[in-house]
């Protein structure tokens, strides 16, 4: 169905091809997952299928790409619109019209289908994707999962034989992601649609894949194989595979269910070794020099080094310690915005050195809570008492960056925080060692940009550090680096609050988890206690080893050694 014949793509001005030696074929009716670290050319490869590369993006494509027998060299994207449907990460930038029904019809109108056909297909698609109740709704009022489903529906109505998806679930909460994946599963099973999908969050999607296409490193030729084969050698893998590799299970389990059936021995082994100590606080584990998991990555994370007295560290120490015992104290907090009760009667205390994960579905009030803590939103009633300075890294770290170069960004950050000149640059050098002064913030990768924003926020020496969805768009390696970095900051006494959908990140990092639903705290306690009991917020290791309370592969590995 989709066929690449010795394809390489070189963008204008780039010294080397972004992808080369790509030669594979996706058979009809299969769901193929494209995996690989950030920056290996996954989006380029996907773009080549729909013809957007090179017709829209520019650059040179060598070799041949054919979709349903049509050569993308001679067919422009618009002429492939009836055989390939493309959905990206952000559904809002995909929408052309303003209501659900019009959006579903748009593609068919462009193709010139007969009105009766269009009417029938719109109704069928509404049913297939469970959107019938939303047909007249303006697109802007839908939730993230609904929008993504409409985006998928809008490319399905012309009945394409292949569907190309670039990280369709990375912006969604676990429940909404399952909604979208269930729809894809149904398309593959019922309609025989061929799906090629790239996704960072393998733990969500690996079990749906028939085959996996791996791009191991930039410029390397891709490898196509069964999920189990590829996962055995892949540089990126979900926790279930990590656990499988640790326990030397063969073939590797890819689903929680497979792993559970194999895990009886491991559970027993763990019980014997660790018998009377089910799981203590995460504090002990945090003191380890380095997380064991990250050793397995091809590119080891940048070590932050020993917390020896450093300029900015001393400075932070030198300032009088805050009088409050808490990094923040929240009492009976309620926030009403646009007639919606965003938060109601929240009581919290956050102690220095603690890492708290705030979880809950989209719109549960996570971002509002962070914005209230940092003072962007004023409480409608109740009180928020920060123990010292508070810094927030917003969902889109780019929003914090204005200047043309990293150096200029650092200078202004120093001035704003009234810190000594060079404070921010020293932080950047420490967190991102190989960044030149004259780099434009826009040219940084997603992870580097997040780290730069973090350095800028840290310049003001906040005792409470807030991060809103920090792992959005990060691959496993960048996530591991972030985890190391945040652990180090927590060890130095910063309190950290993360709002996140990423259950694996919360398991790895947080001492405590707060679950929000409709603006209320529905659970607040040690990570292990809260997530173990929740089906959608439990990390994979917990699900596999339940009823024992294990959260991460690193813990298991340590217990076994």
């Amino acid at each position, binding site marked *: 169905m989709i066929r690449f014949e010795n394809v390489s793509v070189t963008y204008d001005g780039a010294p080397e091809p972004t992808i080369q030696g790509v030669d594979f074929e996706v058979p009809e009716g299969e769901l193929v997952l494209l995996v690989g670290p950030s920056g290996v050319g996954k989006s380029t490869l996907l773009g080549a299928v729909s013809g957007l590369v090179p017709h829209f993006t520019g650059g040179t494509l060598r070799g041949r790409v054919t979709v349903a027998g049509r050569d993308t060299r001679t067919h422009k994207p618009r002429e492939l619109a009836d055989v390939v449907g493309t959905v990206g990460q952000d559904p809002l930038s995909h929408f052309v019209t303003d209501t659900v029904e019009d959006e579903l019809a748009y593609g068919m109108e462009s193709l010139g289908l007969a009105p009766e056909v269009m009417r029938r297909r719109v109704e069928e698609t509404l049913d297939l994707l469970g959107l019938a109740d939303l047909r007249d709704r303006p697109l802007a009022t839908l939730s993230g999962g609904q929008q993504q489903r409409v985006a998928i529906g809008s490319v399905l109505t012309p009945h394409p034989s292949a569907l190309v998806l670039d990280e369709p679930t990375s912006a969604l909460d676990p429940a909404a992601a399952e909604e979208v994946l269930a729809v894809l599963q149904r398309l593959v099973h019922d309609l025989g649609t061929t799906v090629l999908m790239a996704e960072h969050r393998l733990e969500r999607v690996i079990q749906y894949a028939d085959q996996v296409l791996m791009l191991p490193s930039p410029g390397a030729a891709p490898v196509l194989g069964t999920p189990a084969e590829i996962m055995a050698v892949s540089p990126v893998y979900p926790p279930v595979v990590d656990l499988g590799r640790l326990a030397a299970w063969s073939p590797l389990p890819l689903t929680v269910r497979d792993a559970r059936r194999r895990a009886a021995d491991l559970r027993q082994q763990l019980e014997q070794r660790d018998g009377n100590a089910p799981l203590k606080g995460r504090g002990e584990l945090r003191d380890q020099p380095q997380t064991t998991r990250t050793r397995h990555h091809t590119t080891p994370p940048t070590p932050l080094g020993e917390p020896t007295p450093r300029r900015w560290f001393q400075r932070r120490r030198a300032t009088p310690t805050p009088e409050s015992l808490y990094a923040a104290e929240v009492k009976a907090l309620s926030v009403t915005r646009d007639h919606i009760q965003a938060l109601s009667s929240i009581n919290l205390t956050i102690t220095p050195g603690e890492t708290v994960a705030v979880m809950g579905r989209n719109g549960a009030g996570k971002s509002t809570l962070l914005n209230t803590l940092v003072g962007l939103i004023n409480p409608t009633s109740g009180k928020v008492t920060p123990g010292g300075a508070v810094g927030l890294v917003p969902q889109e770290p780019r*929003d914090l960056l204005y200047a043309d170069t990293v150096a200029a960004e650092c200078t202004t950050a120093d001035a704003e925080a009234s810190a000594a000149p060079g404070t921010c640059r020293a932080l950047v050098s420490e967190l991102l060692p190989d960044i030149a002064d004259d780099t434009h913030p826009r040219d940084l990768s997603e992870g580097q940009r997040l780290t730069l924003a973090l350095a800028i926020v840290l310049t003001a020496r906040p005792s409470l550090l807030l991060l809103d969805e920090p792992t959005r768009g990060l691959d496993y390696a960048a996530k591991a680096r972030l985890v190391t970095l945040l652990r180090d900051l927590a060890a130095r006494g910063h309190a950290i609050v993360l709002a996140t959908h990423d259950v694996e990140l919360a398991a790895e990092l947080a001492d405590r988890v707060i679950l929000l639903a409709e603006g209320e705290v529905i659970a607040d306690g040690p990570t292990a206690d809260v997530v173990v009991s929740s089906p959608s917020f439990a990390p994979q290791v917990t699900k596999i080893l339940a009823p024992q309370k294990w959260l991460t592969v690193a813990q298991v590995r340590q217990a076994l050694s």
Partner: protein
Amino acid sequence: MGLHPGAWWLWSLSLGTAATRTTNPLLLALLIATSAYVVVTCRSDAPWARSYTAFVKLALAVLLIRLVFAVALGSPIPGTHVIVTLPEIPLPDWAQGIRLGGKVTAETLVYALYDGLRLATLLICVGAANSLANPTRLLKSLPGALYEMGVAVVVALTYAPHLIADVQRLRAARRLRGRPHTGIRGLLHVGLPVLEGALERSVALAASMDARGYGRTADVPPRVRRTTTALTLGGLLGVCAGTYGLLTAEGGTYGLPVLLIGLAAALAGLRLGGRRALRTRYRPDRWDARAWLVAASGAAVAALLTLAADRDPAALHPGVVPLVAPTLPLWPAAAVLLGLLPAFLAPAPRSPATRKEPS
């Protein structure tokens, strides 16, 4: 399916035209009441339907401003009924003809009121069109050759809310960094990132539209293509020349025919151009008998009031000097009531899906 949006626009603009034919406050009030009644019975519960209130407020503001100007600056209406005398600010010689303060006469006020009310009625009629017909659906009814322009406008309309959200987000981010986020400087600094974001989104949207078949064209023989270009360009030139002829004194003879020929050529060009477009329309709004009746009822109001203004100018323009109480001329008032027809023809049908709309 609702009524064709074009019918609503014709109806509202006709009422607006009727409003420009009279200054009689009773007739104007009747026109406003007619449009309000129709809006209340026929509008749907979509977001754009709420714009009527905004237009009414705008109309009130216009009326007030007109009155304030009349009081503060006076007017050339010679009046004898002095209500109050404001202190007059002496102005230098070069500002001759402008007066600040001074006598406020009842005649001035009434004249300003009539005049302002006429403008307010016009605005309210436009507001009625806006709230009865989805503006984007109206664009979809454009002929095929103008389709690209319609899409551009729709995209622009959906971008406005995105831009506002971007500005708010970036201003919040500025506050996080402790920078000034209000005032001109704050806005200027936010401006560049907002534009960058908008540009990126436009590129993403363009890619998405391309991949979804936007701009697929049918093969048209080159001969037809050239004819289309010639007709459209020639037609537009003809329209320009004809308009110029109509407006100048010498061109009275050739003006009208040139204009008409140009218009016909341009329309033919558009029609031929539509052949290149492959597009079909999903659930197009049909111009049915109800649409005819709604448009005709509006047109009748406009025509009858124009006729009335010609036949009985005194009743439609009640005198200001000397002051007389306006009377309601009977048959023009009955004509205005014709505009109520849509309220009985086209009450908004509630589709089953919207009724159980979650709050």
